[in-house]
């Protein structure tokens, strides 16, 4: 099918002629007719441009397909963080804010920790739960600066903490999870993260404990 195009007061030009013009395949006389037609038909000007753009793009295309192994590796990067996962237990009704009772940066003379720029020790308390948090800069980490956060949960009553308690590190003031972990049998857990401000959510049998505005830098 040839599409026929009529411009106002311009030569009768077919779509096939427009494409032939775009491809540089018309005689000088036929090309002049198409140019006159294009002067009043901006949509066809776009068609000519698109044809030439496509031709130029393909003629210069030196792209390379990645190997199936590389593609599989890229697909494996995905770790689902469904909306439900983000908002599930973090949205529990029974939530309690933990109080910061020790910060090695503002209490450097405390005997229990020596002061070091690449290590931060924090202690939070809430009801019967105590959280000791140590953040330490990972030396020689490639690319962006990274810190390892090691946590220890304990219960004032039993001096222990239930295994497999869920823990989530979120960007401060949001529910965007940047790291998740489960406490081991002794209440210990660890993350790796980049410098920033975070909230730490801990799921306990009594609700969700929140240690807020943890500044890692």
């Amino acid at each position, binding site marked *: *099918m*040839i*599409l026929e195009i009529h411009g106002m007061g311009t030569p009768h030009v*077919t*779509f*096939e002629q*427009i*494409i*032939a013009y775009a*491809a540089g*395949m018309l005689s000088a006389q036929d090309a002049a007719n198409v*140019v006159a037609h*294009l002067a009043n038909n901006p949509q066809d*000007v*776009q*068609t*000519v*441009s*698109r*044809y*030439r*753009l*496509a*031709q130029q*793009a*393909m*003629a*210069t*295309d*030196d*792209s*390379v*397909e*990645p*190997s199936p*192994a*590389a*593609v599989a*590796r*890229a*697909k494996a*990067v*995905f*770790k*689902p*963080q*469904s*909306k*439900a*996962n983000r908002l599930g237990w973090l949205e529990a009704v029974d939530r309690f804010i933990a109080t910061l009772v020790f910060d090695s940066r503002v209490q450097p003379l405390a005997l229990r920790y020596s002061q070091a720029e690449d290590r931060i020790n924090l202690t939070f308390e809430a009801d019967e739960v105590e959280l000791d948090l140590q953040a330490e800069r990972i030396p020689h980490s*490639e*690319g962006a600066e990274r810190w390892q956060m090691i946590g220890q949960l304990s219960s004032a009553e039993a001096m222990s903490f239930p295994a497999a308690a869920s823990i989530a590190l979120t960007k401060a003031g949001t529910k*965007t999870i940047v790291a998740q972990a489960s406490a081991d049998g002794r209440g210990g857990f660890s993350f790796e993260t980049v410098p920033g401000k975070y909230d730490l959510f801990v799921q306990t049998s009594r609700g969700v404990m929140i240690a807020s505005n943890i500044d890692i830098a």
Partner: protein
Amino acid sequence: VHRSDPDLIQACQRGDQNAWNELVARYGRLVYSIPRRYGLKEADADDVYAAVWEIAFRNLDKLRDQSRLSAWLITTAHRECWRVGRKNPTTSIDLDQRISDVGSPSDEQITLWENQDIVRRGLQTLGGRCQELLSALFMEPGEPSYEAIADRLGMTLGSIGPTRARCFKKLEKILVDLGLDRESLGLEQGSQLG
């Protein structure tokens, strides 16, 4: 059904692995080609490729303009090429000569790579005889030999012109749907018509 980049990104954010796979399939070639174009060896190109997708996954929530994912991937790949190339002194290329601005490729370079990717994907979507004919016409170095193309595709010489027009009409619609860059079309209008 073609899903837009913002649709796929939002599906990824809901935990949809298939959406992520579709993004990797859509832009895998675009991303992988950048280290190869800069002359990185295959192993280094693989590292850049993997790093770009890891960075992309970590930053899905931070993308300010989800419709500009391909440009963002190009810039990220460009930076990773620099990082990987610098780290590996055994690389045989001179990155200083190939990469003038460490932060980002030029806008013209980004547009060209995006357009090449869109046209390639457009032709794949077109498929069939139309894909074969337009690919042959577009990719033939220099003046295409219509006789050779007609012979190869089993067409009569006289049918190439009408078929080319019919096929391009279909391709043009696909390219617009895929977001063929309008700015570059504007440049084309000013510089090449007439």
